[in-house]
């Protein structure tokens, strides 16, 4: 059963990701955004398979909830039409696709040859309590740095997107 779930979610993730970047039917950013939501939700499914229940919830809440809303908001705000197919540079597309395919194959070969994780039984349970303990004790400093980072993002976003009154 576990195996079936893995393959279903893995296939969903990869397929939806493909639809984000190379949708043959539509070049509309909104379609891409919707498929990104699906990718993220099926990724959360994989997280559940890995017993990272809290992260699965956060993934859906933050990404599918907040980040994607932001994306859609900006798409609507700018009133973006379909990506125009101006001078489709076939050569660039093919070269890019080829390069990426080579990278992917290289990756998978490396993964196939690695010694990491062979014969290891997954036993870790990512309980929320344990995660919180680690986050607020061991990783307290990065957590605080993150708050400064959010301050920067806030100041920056207000500054950049506000219309100057003059």
């Amino acid at each position, binding site marked *: 059963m576990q195996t079936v779930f893995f393959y279903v979610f893995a296939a969903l993730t990869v397929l939806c990701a493909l639809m984000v970047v190379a949708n043959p039917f539509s070049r509309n950013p909104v379609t891409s955004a919707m498929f990104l939501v699906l990718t993220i939700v099926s990724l959360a499914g994989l997280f559940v398979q890995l017993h990272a229940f809290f992260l699965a919830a956060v*993934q859906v809440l933050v990404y599918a909830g907040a980040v994607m809303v932001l994306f859609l908001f900006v798409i609507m705000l700018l009133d973006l039409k379909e990506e125009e197919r101006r001078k489709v540079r076939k050569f660039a597309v093919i070269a890019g696709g080829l390069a990426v395919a080579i990278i992917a194959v290289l990756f998978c070969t490396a993964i196939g040859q690695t010694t990491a994780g062979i014969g290891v039984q997954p036993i870790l349970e990512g309980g929320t309590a344990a995660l919180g303990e680690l986050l607020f004790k061991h990783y307290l400093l990065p957590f605080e740095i*993150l708050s400064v980072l959010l301050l920067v993002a806030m100041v920056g976003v207000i500054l950049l997107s506000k219309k100057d009154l003059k």
Partner: protein
Amino acid sequence: MNVGLEHYLVVSALLFALGLLGVIVRRNLLVIYMSLELMLNAANLALVAFSRFNHNLDGQVMVFFIITVAAAEVAVGLALIVALYRKRETAHVEDLTTMKF
């Protein structure tokens, strides 16, 4: 057949490659950002998988941080697009050509 670490890593590698493809091939800045998100999510998946097979939670904490950082990054990136759009009605990379050579 049991699902092992390498299965998750292959999914994550594919996700990363697809994201990279989007960044290279697509012209719309918003879609490029979405592809960037895919690349970050690939790292997330790898981290969660490693975390489970390494028997420590550090990887999961890292994912937690990455999700937050990615949200902040997207916000700044979208603000940059909005700022550019104010100056020049475009969201295409091909139009970023004011500076040459």
